[in-house]
């Protein structure tokens, strides 16, 4: 969806991280789903590896 379309349509949000941001959207009646995100086991190093795996998935 282009930026212009985004600006002209209702927001439908997926919230990943601080739950307060999903809660803040509720009074506006914005469609929002909160993701109960957990860091990958193995911490930041795992994240870097996972990001590289994502890249390789792209190239495949």
């Amino acid at each position, binding site marked *: 969806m282009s*930026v212009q379309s*985004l*600006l002209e349509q209702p927001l439908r*949000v*997926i*919230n*990943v991280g*601080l739950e307060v941001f999903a809660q803040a959207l509720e009074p506006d009646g914005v469609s929002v*789903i*909160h993701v109960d995100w957990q860091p990958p086991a193995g911490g930041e190093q795992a994240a870097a590896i996972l990001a590289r795996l994502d890249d390789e998935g792209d190239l495949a």
Partner: protein
Amino acid sequence: MAVRAIVRCSHYQDSMALMRLAEALRALPGVREAAALMGTPANHEMLAVAGLAIPEAKDAAPGDLMIVVSAETDEAATSALDRAAGLLEAKRRVRETAGRAVPRTLESALRQQPDANLVAVSVPGPYAKLVALRALRRGLHVFLFSDNVPLADEIELKQAAARRGLLCMGPDCGTAYLGGVGLGFANEVAPGRIGCVAASGTGLQAVASHLAALGEGISHGIGVGGRDLSAEVGGIMTTAALEALAANPRTEVVVLISKPPAPGVMAELEAAIRTFPKPVVVCCLGAAPRGDGRAPWVRTLEDAAHAAAALARRQPWTARAFTDPAAVRTRLESIRRGRGETRVLGLYTGGTLAWEARLLLEPLLGTVGARLDDRGHRVIDLGGDEFTIGRPHPMLDPEARAARVRQAGRTRDVGVLLVDLVLGRAAHPDPARPLAAAIHDARRAAEADGRALVVAASVVGTERDPQGLARQVTALEAAGAHVLPSNAQAARFAALAVKPDLAPALLGGTG
């Protein structure tokens, strides 16, 4: 004194949820200090510094939750930890009895909402790229609140977004407005005809709040993050945002809010502004103002709002130092001056507001430092990275700043304290209360030492914010603070309080 801890393995909670948990525990009888932290190396260090590092917690890994309590007695500590366990359990039960299963990944969230169009990401910085890139690859726009994101990650994300014609708002994007909906730390502002492109969350909040006070509204406020106009990032998102607002039918006037761009980027930005098809106000805090009918460059956030409203209404406008110079004179007359020369100390929660204050004070007072240990005048951004690694931002946890405010009351050379207060839906429910209490204590401490402590403040917010602008202002005034209508005016007031001979220049007449 008893220090006790529990550790919950593989039990991640976000930093704000943990902050609220710690707050709840600190309020329990007999509890002196409480910490709820994930077991990252930085957090272990913080526990050690706070005297809370005990054997029970030392093996906690980054994915494990540590709850440490320091209390007057063993019973009080145990009781507090039981309460903590109860709160965690209650939270888990709410999750599990919710109508649908709460998704744990982006992919499962998309199965529940396949027509999602935006992913809001506020995970810790090192994980931001992992989450945001997945969203962009799915064709979703991204609001990226996370800070402490490596520059290389930011460049990769924004290039990926630009290639796909998507927005990547951030990293370090605190606030945005899309179609009248506020994202992140946003104030309640009516939808309207002014569009903003902001490399600053609190900058956007301030401009939006001033526009609301003027009876104008925001069409969209597109955040681009603090580094977008750096040489390395090259203004990728600023360009995309300006193009989007140029084409957006609801947007009549555009306001650009940022610090001065890198030299190469500045030239491109100036060219884009010159050829922009709608009136545009540029607030590049630190760049020299220049007049230009349809594209004025203004000095302050307040001026940006006034100039934009004037352009939308096709009315003339000129900048003023104070909305109400007579009221300022009256306030100054009521100030009991102490002995000798004193300094201005700014303790800020909003980085852009601190920056704006420093820019205004330097021509008036001379050098203004940015570090706590600077001598002379100093304005500190307490939300800066060095203060917030593993700690909640002072906008969320007012106690961090309150302690420093109290300390200012005991610091001999501080004659004027300058502060900001930021409201909004996701902010602290009543930030004026702890700040007012600290201001009250600081002024009393100074007075007991035969000194006068003047406090100048401004509040970023609107009447429709949950905290209520007027109530928050009243609470600060009741504690003895002088609340001015904008950060710029508060800074000028602070300068007048330490250097009365500035009055003719700032107030006109005979001062």
